[in-house]
C-alpha cells in the first residue's frame, strides 16, 4: 500500500453501510455488507450480474420501499447527521432529497427540458420564478448541458439525443443540491463518445458531491473511481483504493473477475 495515501479509515466519511442484509422475498440478495463511502470521492461497485450491486445502490435512497416483498436489515449511516437512513422513522422522501439518483437508461419526464431540471424544486413547493431559473441554469451548467440547450429550454426533453438526455437526468439530480449522487450504470445505454463525456462529468462533480456508481464496465470503474468495491453473489468480497483492487487484489475471486476469467 502507498503509505502517503494513508488508511481509508482516516479519510472523511460521508456514509457507511453496516452489516446490511437484503431479501427479495425468500432470496437473500445481500449478505452482511459493510463498507464506507468517502466524502467527495467516487466509489465504484463492480461485480458480475446478479451480485447485488444495484440492490445496494438503491438501498441508499430507499427505492426498495416502493415495492412490496422487500426486506432489509442493518444500517446505512449518513454523516454528518449520524442517522441511519434505513430507520423506519426516517422519511424516505427526505432521504431522496439529499441522495439523488441517475438511472441506467435516461428517463426524462414527458415535459420540457426546463421542467425536467426543476422537477425536484417543484415537488418541494418552490414556485419563485427567479429561484427556479437560477437553479435550472446552475444545474445545467454543472451537467455540461447549458451551452447546448440554453436557447431551447422549453422544448420537449425527448427532442434531445440519448447522451444529452442522460446529462439532463444528471442536471435534474443536481438541481436539488444533493450531498450524494447515486449512479446506476449511467452509461450502459450510451455510445463510447458520450460515455467519455459522462465520465468526465463525474470527475468534475466529485469536487462537490460524494458519488457512488454501479458499473458493468471495469475500465470505467478504473477510470472514474477512487475506491472500488467488488461484489459477488451478494457478498462484498473486497473494498479498497481502485488502483489496489485493479493492480494487486488481495482476494483470488477479485483477481479472477478483474482479469476477465469470468464475469
Amino acid at each position, binding site marked *: 500500500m502507498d503509505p502517503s495515501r494513508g488508511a481509508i479509515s482516516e479519510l472523511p466519511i460521508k456514509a457507511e453501510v453496516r452489516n446490511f442484509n437484503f431479501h427479495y422475498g425468500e432470496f437473500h440478495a445481500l449478505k452482511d455488507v459493510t463498507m464506507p463511502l468517502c466524502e467527495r470521492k467516487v466509489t465504484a461497485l463492480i461485480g458480475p450480474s446478479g451480485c447485488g450491486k444495484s440492490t445496494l445502490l438503491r438501498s441508499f435512497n430507499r427505492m426498495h420501499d416502493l415495492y412490496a416483498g422487500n426486506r432489509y436489515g442493518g444500517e446505512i449511516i449518513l454523516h454528518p447527521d449520524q442517522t441511519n437512513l434505513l430507520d423506519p422513522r426516517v422519511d424516505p422522501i427526505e432521504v*431522496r432529497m439529499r441522495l439523488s439518483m441517475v438511472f441506467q437508461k435516461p428517463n426524462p419526464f414527458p415535459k420540457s427540458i426546463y421542467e425536467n431540471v426543476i422537477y425536484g424544486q417543484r415537488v418541494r413547493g418552490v414556485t419563485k420564478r427567479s429561484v427556479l431559473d437560477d437553479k435550472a441554469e446552475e444545474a445545467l451548467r454543472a451537467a455540461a448541458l447549458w451551452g447546448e440547450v440554453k436557447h431551447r429550454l422549453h422544448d420537449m426533453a425527448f427532442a434531445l439525443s440519448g447522451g444529452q438526455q442522460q446529462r439532463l437526468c444528471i442536471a435534474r439530480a443536481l438541481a*436539488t443540491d444533493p450531498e450524494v449522487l447515486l449512479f446506476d450504470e449511467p452509461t450502459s445505454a450510451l455510445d463510447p463518445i458520450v460515455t467519455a463525456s459522462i465520465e468526465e462529468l463525474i470527475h468534475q462533480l466529485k469536487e462537490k458531491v460524494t458519488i457512488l456508481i454501479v458499473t458493468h464496465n471495469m475500465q470505467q470503474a478504473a477510470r472514474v473511481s477512487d475506491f472500488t468495491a467488488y461484489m459477488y453473489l451478494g457478498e462484498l468480497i473486497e473494498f479498497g483504493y481502485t488502483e489496489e483492487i485493479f493492480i494487486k487484489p488481495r482476494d483470488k475471486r477479485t483477481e479472477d473477475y478483474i482479469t476477465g476469467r469470468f464475469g
Partner: protein
Amino acid sequence: MSPSSSSPAVSERLARKASRHISERIIEATLFAAAAVSIFVTVAIVFILVRESVAFFQQVPVVDFLSDTQWTPLFDDAHFGILVLLSGTAVSSTVALAVAIPIGTTIAIFLSEFASQRTRETAKPILELLAGMPTVVFGYFALMFVTPLLQELMPELPGFNLLSAGLVMGIMIVPIVSSIAEDAMRAVPMALREGSYAMGATRLQTAFYVVLPAAVSGIGAAYILGIARAVGETMILAIAAGMQPKLTFDPREPAATITAFIVQVALGDLPHGSIGYQTIFAAGLTLMLFTLLFNILGFWLQRKYRERY
C-alpha cells in the same frame, strides 16, 4: 424464364407440399372473410342511412332541418328541427360526462397509483360488472330511485327529466372511463415513476406531475369513448327523460334525445317509406356523424398529445 423451369430437378424433400399450401390458403381466406363481413356490415348501414336520408331531404330542406326550432314529424303541421333533439342529447351527455369524467379519472388514478394489487384485482371486475349491466336496469333506477331522490331536493322537478337520466348515465359510463384510463396509466413505464420518486416526489406528485401527463393520450381516448357512449345511449333516456321533443338547455326539464326519438318512432307502426319513417334515418345519420366527429377529434388529439416515453 421462371426459376423452376431453369432447374428441372427440385428435390422431393424440398418441393412445395400442395396439402399444406391449400390449408394455409383456406385459413387465410376464412380470416379475410371474417374481416370483410364487419366492413360490409358497416358499409351497408351507412348506405341505408344515406339512401333513406336522401329521400327525406328531398321533402324537407336541409336548412329547415338545421334551423327549425320545433320537432313534430308526426303531426299534421310537421316540423323537422333536429336542434330540438340535439339539445336533449347535448344536455344529457354533458350531465353524464360531468359525473363520469371526474369520478372515472379519480378511480383510475387510485387504482393505478395507490391501490395495492389485491385491491385492484378486487375492484376492477366489480367496476366492470357495472359496465355490463343492461341499460334498461339503469333506466328504471333513474326513474324509480334517482328522480324521487332529486325531487326531495328540488320539489318542482318533473317525473321525467334529463338530470336524473344524465346522472345515471354518468354512473354507467364511469367504468368505461376508469378502466381505459387506468390501462393507459399503468402502461407508463416504471422507470418514469422511479425517476420521480428518486427526486423526492410523493405518490400524489408522481401521479399528477409525471404519470398523468405521460398517459394523457390514452386518458383522452377514454373520455372520447365515454362521450360516444353518452351520445349513443338510448334506453336510460327513453325511460327516465320523457320523450317530448323540446328545445331546452335546462337539465331539469324533460326532453327527447335523438336516440329516444328513434326508439319511440321505431316502436310505432309507421308505413314504410312515409316521411315519419324516413325521419328516423335522418336522425340516425346525424347521430352517426356526431359520433364520427368525436372519433376523429379523439384520433387527432391522441396524435397531437402523444407522449413518447
